[in-house]
């Protein structure tokens, strides 16, 4: 990400240290991950030490310090999904794409994350890929859904 664009985002949020998280969120959403150069730029402009930015960037779940895969797979591990078999869905996904939650596969096809509740408890267990919700999944259906992504 170009420093110019990073600057625009910083300016939009008023270049205040209190806006740090909002700025990082916008960079994350636009760029899909937080490159170190961008973090340094933000630190410089806001006068915030890099140690604090690093802590924030690793503390909150929304941020990633590595590039993410083309397809973002979110497995809901909320309570309602849990009692309806979310673990089995997660096991299947891990078997099929061979990565654990928090990881991205080598050809950047999938990133896998677990999330706490997608608020679709009626459809549990739920898997969301790129914002599309797949509900009432069984292990067999889960494997089928994954096959349809390139």
């Amino acid at each position, binding site marked *: 990400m170009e420093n110019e664009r990073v600057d625009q985002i910083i300016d939009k949020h008023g270049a205040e240290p209190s806006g740090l998280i909002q700025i990082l969120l916008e960079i994350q959403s636009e760029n899909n991950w937080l*490159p170190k150069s961008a973090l340094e730029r933000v630190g410089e402009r806001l006068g915030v030490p890099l*140690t604090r930015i690093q802590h924030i*960037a*690793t*503390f909150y779940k929304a941020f990633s310090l590595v590039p993410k895969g083309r397809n973002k797979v979110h497995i809901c591990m909320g309570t309602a999904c849990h009692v309806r078999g979310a673990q089995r869905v997660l096991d299947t996904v891990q078997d099929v794409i061979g990565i*654990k939650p*928090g990881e991205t596969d080598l050809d950047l096809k999938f990133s896998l994350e677990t999330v706490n509740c997608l608020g679709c408890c009626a459809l549990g267990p739920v898997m969301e890929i790129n914002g599309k919700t797949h509900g009432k999944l069984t292990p067999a259906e889960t494997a089928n859904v994954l096959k349809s992504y390139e």
Partner: protein
Amino acid sequence: MSEIVLEIDGKKVTAREGATVLEAAASAGVRIPTLCHHEKLEPYGSCRLCTVEVEAGGRTRLVVACVYPAADGLRVRTRSDKIDRIRKLILELYLAHAPDAAGLRDLAEEYGADRDRFDKEASFCIQCGLCVRYCAEVKKKHAVGFVDRGWRKEICFVPEIAAETCWDCRECFPLCPTEALQAAYVFVEALKFPREDPPGDGAVPERS
């Protein structure tokens, strides 16, 4: 500044207004164990070892002495069965990380803590934050910070800053309550060249 009188373990103690219970106790010679406290640093309240019982307004509760403000008429108990039980278990949790640390050994003996109560952990760090906070609050260098959260939280040096400032300072090394070499170890790791398998573009390790 005005003075206040409180009671610690039955003793009348005079303290300045704004002092914490820990400071008041120290001035009266009552020792309360701590691991994350440092007089030059802001109270942090993370090790919970200085948990004491206070009675104010007819209510008794457990608080940490390093943060709780001393107040006129406050009654403090620094030892009780419950307090000792809490300190013992906290020490046991720490001993899983640093079973041989000298600073913990004496306390463990005092409270009867069993160093083998929990399975041993790979890291010696107990997240007291002394090195991180000292670097930020006293030295204002911000060379070492925390990354991640929960049990994955660890200390991490920023190589660029560390390479420039740490060699001549190293004041954080002896602060470490478990192993004086903990910060030193992470520091050297950060400066290794070439760094082993830099994650991403070399910022900080990805959370798993």
